[in-house]
């Protein structure tokens, strides 16, 4: 393979454009072009070796993990999330077993150590978190309630994600009136008072914990849609998107195969935050009496039920589910914060 121009043989060396190769390295005696080519190949081979032997360039995930590791608060959050997930999964699995729970006592069974005044009994060896006003074991109720929180977090965020990650990319990719309609709709969802809107949907759907998931999910889409739309706007201008269109890829293929996968980093952060938010919203709804119905337990429902006993001196009923809720939400938010910092290119050192 030679760089000599067969169309212009024997052109003088004074020609301003002797040939393309000579602009790279000019020389009369030595075939400098071949030298350049060899050097180039050597360079490429070195790159190749680098790519081959373990010292691979950092991918998005390994790079993110490297920086997340140094953020202790985020690691604590990750630990909390892991424990919460394990406990929650155990409760979800136990739900479908004949027993229906995995806890020291049946969560809704009454009269364990009911004190004569009807104020429950304080923490003891047989009931480490104490019992409530009808003698139900607080530890068992707190544990079993984990499954509601886990399910509401996962299902509500999944619903919000599905809607948001369909409408967001479509809005950003097509622009124009499609974009305006979807984004004004998102504005409407943002403008309404959140709890009021959930209440409204709950009234339409009727009570029941499945409907809590749906209501929170339907309300959450706007966050993901708007967040994603911004990233789509920048990614759709990339050359690989144009390349895909030049190949004849359909709009759907371009959006969901080329654009969306490259806009996910901020979404992962939003998911972590969103799960925490959904858990809080469920607690708020249960506190207000819509959502989980008695005698079933959820952290919010327990906080609501036991608040008056707290003021009367039975501190243990309220304290333990409150701690569980606070710690879990703290875990998601601190992990989400850490993840955001770790993926933010502006904070890269």
């Amino acid at each position, binding site marked *: 393979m030679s760089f000599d121009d067969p169309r212009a043989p024997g052109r003088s060396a*004074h020609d301003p454009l002797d040939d393309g190769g000579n*602009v790279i390295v000019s020389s009369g005696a030595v075939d400098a072009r071949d030298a350049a*080519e060899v050097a180039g190949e050597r360079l490429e081979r070195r790159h190749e070796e680098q790519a081959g032997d373990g010292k691979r360039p950092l991918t998005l995930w390994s790079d993110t993990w490297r920086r997340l590791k140094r953020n202790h608060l985020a690691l604590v959050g990750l630990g909390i999330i892991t424990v919460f997930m394990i406990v929650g999964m155990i409760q979800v699995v136990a739900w479908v077993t004949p027993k229906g729970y995995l806890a020291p006592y049946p969560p809704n069974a009454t009269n364990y150590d009911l004190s004569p005044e009807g104020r429950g009994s304080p923490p003891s060896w047989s009931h480490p978190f104490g019992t409530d006003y009808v003698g139900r074991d607080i530890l068992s109720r707190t544990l079993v309630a984990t499954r509601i929180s886990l399910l509401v977090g996962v299902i509500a965020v999944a619903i919000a994600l599905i809607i948001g990650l369909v409408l967001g990319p479509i809005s950003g990719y097509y622009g124009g009136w499609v974009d305006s309609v979807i984004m004004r709709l998102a504005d409407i969802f943002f403008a309404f008072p959140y709890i009021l809107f959930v209440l409204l949907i709950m009234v339409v759907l009727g009570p029941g914990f499945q409907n809590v998931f749906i209501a929170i999910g339907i309300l959450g889409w706007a966050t993901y849609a708007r967040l994603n739309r911004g990233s789509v706007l920048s990614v759709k201008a*990339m050359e*690989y998107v*144009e*390349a895909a269109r030049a190949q*004849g890829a359909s709009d759907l*293929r371009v959006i969901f195969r080329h654009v969306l996968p*490259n806009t996910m980093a901020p979404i992962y952060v939003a998911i972590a935050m969103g799960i925490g938010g959904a858990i809080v919203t469920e607690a708020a709804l249960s506190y207000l009496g819509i959502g989980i119905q008695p005698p079933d337990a959820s952290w919010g429902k327990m906080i609501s039920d036991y608040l008056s006993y707290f003021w009367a001196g039975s501190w243990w009923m309220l304290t333990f589910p409150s701690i569980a809720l606070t710690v879990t939400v703290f875990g998601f938010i601190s992990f989400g914060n850490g993840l955001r910092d770790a993926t933010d290119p502006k904070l890269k050192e």
Partner: protein
Amino acid sequence: MSLLEVRDLTKHFPIKTGILKRQTGTVYAVDGISFSVDRGETLGLVGESGCGKSTAGRSILRLIAATGGEVSFDGVDVMRASRSEMQKLRRDMQIIFQDPYASLNPRMRVRDIVGESLKIHRVGTPAERRRHVFELLETVGLNAEHAERYPHEFSGGQRQRIGIARALALNPKLIICDEPVSALDVSIRAQVINLLEDLQDEFDLTYVFIAHDLSVVKHISDRVAVMYLGKIVEISDSGVLYDRPQHPYTEALLSAVPIPDPHTERARRRIILEGDVPSPAAPPSGCVFHPRCPRARPICAEAMPRLVGTGGDAGARHEVACYFPARFADGRRSVADEPFADARPAPRPGA
């Protein structure tokens, strides 16, 4: 018959301002260019950044919708092709991009990037497609093991080879090379250019080769078109254009190419253009080059000269858009000593 025929291709971008999105101006990115490319030929499209050469390339492929003009590819009207016709055309017209870091999807493996068009156009079984991807990688100087890797594991030159393999996958007739070596290390450029030339011979490809580097274009092109501010100012067979440039802009560009000989370099006359390229949103009146042209006269500010044959180089298909094209080396003007009569715009009907 030419494989690609472009006639009066125009792409204007509206400038919209304010909340009402009223159009307050127009960017004349490509303003009526015409050329044709024969089968197996390479047309170089040269010009400064912002002169509209990339926009022209994308308009030809209908990656962006042209404002006006006609593009005919292999007898098919590209501008008016239906969705299914367009899908067929996509198999025959491909593009190689400038930036090998932006043109490969970072989330896809090389085999998916190269094989995507095969999948889109439902060519072969998965096993056949796989084999074809391996072959393509070897054709461009990579090997089959590279198929499982992600783009970030490659160097710039290797990435550009992946981009070339992707363009080749469906065995196209035409490839638009949009500055394919501008972003590469100088040491890698020669390899990629040679690869493109080898592929042209092997697969009987036709190239439209967009670049701002005259030396690269000269090496690879059969014909060269020089663009300035959205218009073609000169077009000719490569050798003729470089030996006897007619348009003052072409002359200036050529005089800026360094000569690898210090004596000649010091002795020669350099044409240094004054001022900057005007904004394509407010192109000058008349000939777009006249504010910077050393030979400009009053007529140049009045109307844009048309591209007409110089008549000086028989068979070279040499056309220039200038009222006062350069003298030939022997002192003879291309047509006459008079202003280039043919270049005058046709009188507007009714004017």
